[in-house]
């Protein structure tokens, strides 16, 4: 771990703090994931990790390597972007699937299907048919 010694204190402290912050957020998110009562509440918890949690760690990483390599270490940005873009897909798909499952079981905790309305414009063309 000799490289860590090369890190000046001004960088080391924020790196350490950011790491701890990120990890703590992830942990809190996961604790919430365990402790919250229903699936729809639990689904919010991991977002702590996927947003600020990982953001902090990425910042720490960027800072660390920028200082160590004396050149901007930016590729961590990609991870952040990918996380922001992809996590919602999972959560959205999952939440809706859970909703369907709960509705089909007749659960009272979820809103029933929207009432029938008068004719409305059709779905955008973008929707890929399945």
């Amino acid at each position, binding site marked *: 771990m000799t490289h860590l010694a090369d890190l000046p204190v001004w960088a080391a402290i924020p790196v350490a703090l950011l790491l701890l912050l990120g990890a703590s957020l992830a942990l809190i998110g996961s604790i919430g994931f365990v402790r919250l009562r229903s699936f729809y509440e*639990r689904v919010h918890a991991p977002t702590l990790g996927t947003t600020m949690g990982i953001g902090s760690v990425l910042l720490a990483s960027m800072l660390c390597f920028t200082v160590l390599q004396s050149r901007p270490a930016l590729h961590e940005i990609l991870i952040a972007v990918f996380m922001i873009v992809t996590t919602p897909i999972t959560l959205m798909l999952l939440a809706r*699937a859970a909703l369907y499952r709960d509705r089909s079981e007749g659960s009272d905790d979820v809103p029933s299907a929207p009432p029938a309305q008068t004719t409305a414009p059709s779905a955008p063309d973008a929707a890929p048919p399945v």
Partner: protein
Amino acid sequence: MTTTLLLWSIFLAQILLVVAMACATFRVLRGPRAQDRVLGLDTLYVNATMLLLTFGIRTGSTLYFEAALIIALLGFVATAALAKFLMRGEVIE
């Protein structure tokens, strides 16, 4: 000094992350519903990504970055597939 500080904070962060992973695993094991398990796996993936990043800082190597990148970019594919399976009964229609 900075080394100690960093080592300890990295260590602590890793411990926190692993405990977070354990929480997620708990949900995967416990459920109660399939969606909880899937969400647990997703959380597991996210926490693992962070763990890999802290590991990169600890070893001073950027080589583990790709693994984290892959999880960030593609980790969702497995969970999305699972979600689709729950919703539609099959992954590819």
